[in-house]
């Protein structure tokens, strides 16, 4: 399928374009203007809602998504929703799934969701445990590549050379160290769970298809959605979708699917662009384009993109592993 969403032209309409969409995350919440996470969550949960006929229970980790959507006495969720802690959402979801099994209600599906801080860092142990037991939960990570709720600090998902509040560049330091960070989708795949996918809010059709597919698979599933953050990344709020698409087009955010530990497909990039086109509009990378910075810095990220192109075979499509 195309990397460029065609809206409703020539294909199945998206859930989001349907007037009767479930609106799992309703308006009136406190998300920032242009929030990628709010968009990602609505698209994902709506798709799961529509696929299951509304038979979903959602567990949320602490973070932006939880704080902006459910501040008592207001609540933007129209689905059953449970928030416990920052680091335990996968385990709580395991418990919810176990309760459903105990009651013989297997048709109800469980989703756990959280940001990259909750997923990559503080909740990593619980997530790995959930994968290890192959618990019947779809875990969705909204990846905005830093701790946005607390004011943009570095997480394990922060890309190399990005500026965050805890990786502030100066004359001798160019932001988050090039040798740091981890590849959680691959870590998830290494657990051998039935389904792993990456998605982007720049490609809603693809995102919805992956969620709709994942929600009915039995066992542990992991979907990671790239959700740009205007505040944390430093770009105008109207640019969220464009930034998300640029990340995919330059190869820094490869969209792929894995099953039982094997890569089974990826979304090809039709017209690859240099990473600079993606980096330049964002203030978190502005220091890479200063006067005294060597071109090498951007080269580090270009190498990562090139590596992704090859590793995930983004230049062509493979149907079978």
């Amino acid at each position, binding site marked *: 399928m195309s990397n460029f969403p065609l809206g409703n032209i020539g294909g199945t309409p998206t859930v989001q374009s349907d007037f009767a969409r479930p609106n799992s995350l309703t308006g009136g919440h406190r998300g920032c203007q242009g929030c990628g996470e709010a968009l990602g969550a609505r698209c994902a949960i709506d798709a799961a809602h529509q696929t299951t006929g509304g038979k979903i229970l959602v567990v949320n980790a602490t973070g932006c998504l939880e704080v902006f959507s459910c501040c008592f006495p207001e609540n933007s*969720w129209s689905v059953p929703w449970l928030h*416990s802690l920052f680091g335990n959402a996968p385990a709580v979801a395991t*418990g*919810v799934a176990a*309760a459903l099994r*105990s009651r013989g209600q297997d048709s109800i599906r469980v989703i756990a969701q959280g940001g990259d801080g909750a997923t990559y860092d503080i909740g990593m142990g*619980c997530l790995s*445990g959930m994968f290890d*037991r192959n618990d019947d939960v779809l875990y969705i990570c909204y990846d905005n590549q830093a701790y946005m709720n607390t004011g943009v600090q570095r997480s394990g998902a922060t890309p190399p050379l990005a500026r965050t509040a805890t990786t502030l560049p100066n004359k001798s330091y160019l932001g988050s160290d090039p040798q740091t960070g981890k590849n959680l989708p691959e870590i998830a795949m290494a657990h051998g769970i039935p389904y792993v996918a990456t998605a982007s809010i720049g490609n809603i059709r693809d995102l919805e298809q992956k969620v709709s597919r994942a929600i009915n698979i039995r066992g542990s599933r992991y979907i990671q959605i790239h959700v740009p953050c205007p505040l944390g990344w430093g770009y105008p709020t109207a640019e969220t979708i464009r930034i998300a698409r640029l990340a995919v087009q330059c190869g820094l955010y490869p969209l792929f699917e894995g099953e039982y530990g094997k890569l089974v497909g990826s979304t090809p990039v039709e017209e690859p662009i240099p990473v600079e086109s993606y980096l330049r509009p964002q203030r978190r990378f502005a220091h890479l384009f200063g006067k005294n910075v060597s071109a090498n810095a951007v080269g580090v990220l270009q190498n990562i993109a090139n590596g992704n192109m090859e590793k995930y075979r983004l230049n062509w499509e493979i149907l079978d592993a």
Partner: protein
Amino acid sequence: MFHQLEGSQAIARAVALCRPGVICAYPITPQTHIVEGVGELVRDGHLEHCEFINVESEMAALSVAIGSQAAGVRSYTATSSQGLLHMIEAVYNASGLELPLVMTLGNRAIGAPINIWNDHSDAMSVRDTGWIMLFAETNQEAVDLHLQAFLIAEKVSCPVMVCVDGFILTHAYERVDIPSQEEVDEFLPPYTPRVSLDVDDPVAIGAMVSPDYFFEVRYLAHRRQMDSLEIICCVAESFWKKFGRDSGGLFHEYHTDGAETIVVTLGSVAGTIKDVVDELNASGEKFGVIALTSYRPFPADSLKNSLKNAARAIVVEKAFAIGIGGILFQEIELLMKNINVKIVSVVAGIGGRSITKSMLRECFLNKNSGENVFLGLNEDIVAKEYVPMKSHSCEGNVP
């Protein structure tokens, strides 16, 4: 029916009789035999519709229980010591979310230095987390308290922690009366959640609460716990009617009528203390014992009433707060302010140090003891280590 059982196995059977739907297990000494025991019962088919889950940490153990209880299913887990500390964030969370799950705490010391033996440091570290905390004196009471715990938790909508002395109870073989499934079913009705995750009636559980409401939420949690004093008594009474045993309730009194000295304590050491008191009373002394069952909520009024006519109260406890001293002691001292009862703090049994009858006898008879006794402390080691420690810390000028 009577069985000769290890404490942990007896507790496992009691828990199984309560028909939990989800049980989460993570090993930590001395609690491990309990979850092993329930796991075996689940796999052998003694427990229908029960999911037994091996988790990767105590944080996950309690979190899984939080999730399953929030989804409307009776849930159980157990832990000890470091494990309790590892799950501390979830401990607060379970009570904050008003989830009536039950957890056994096999009481053990907290490190460093690492120590696997019994004291009450772990329980004391969570005394203000909003859980109802019940202490068992014997393995029979441990069994009985678990049956009561689920009922209390579900009536109050508050998690209950049943504290059982590690090794001393968990690993001791005793004759224990295990009731039949029919009897327990009559005593403990199926769980009906007040609120739960339900696709037909969506609710959001665990919202963020602003300063406009947070204070009230916490205050109501306090009120709810104070009200549960009455429920704990009612449950103990209906337990007595059903099973004919005086188990649970707020505290057990032993020869307190007319006692000049009342020893107040928590957990299994009450048995040793009662033996000592029997011997002392046989030689003309007037001692009584109060073994606290309900530590949280703290039965302040009833306790005050039972202590007010004594000349002296000795608080024997297996934990202390570094930097201030005995913990239960402070609470009882506060309770007895303006009442003319001398309160003595006896800290003993720390890190599994034996508490013997002769130690206790000598301590109880010493009417001129100071207010703070560290019973069984090896003064030779302290003397050897304290002097160099003190001189070292006083070296140099404080900037």
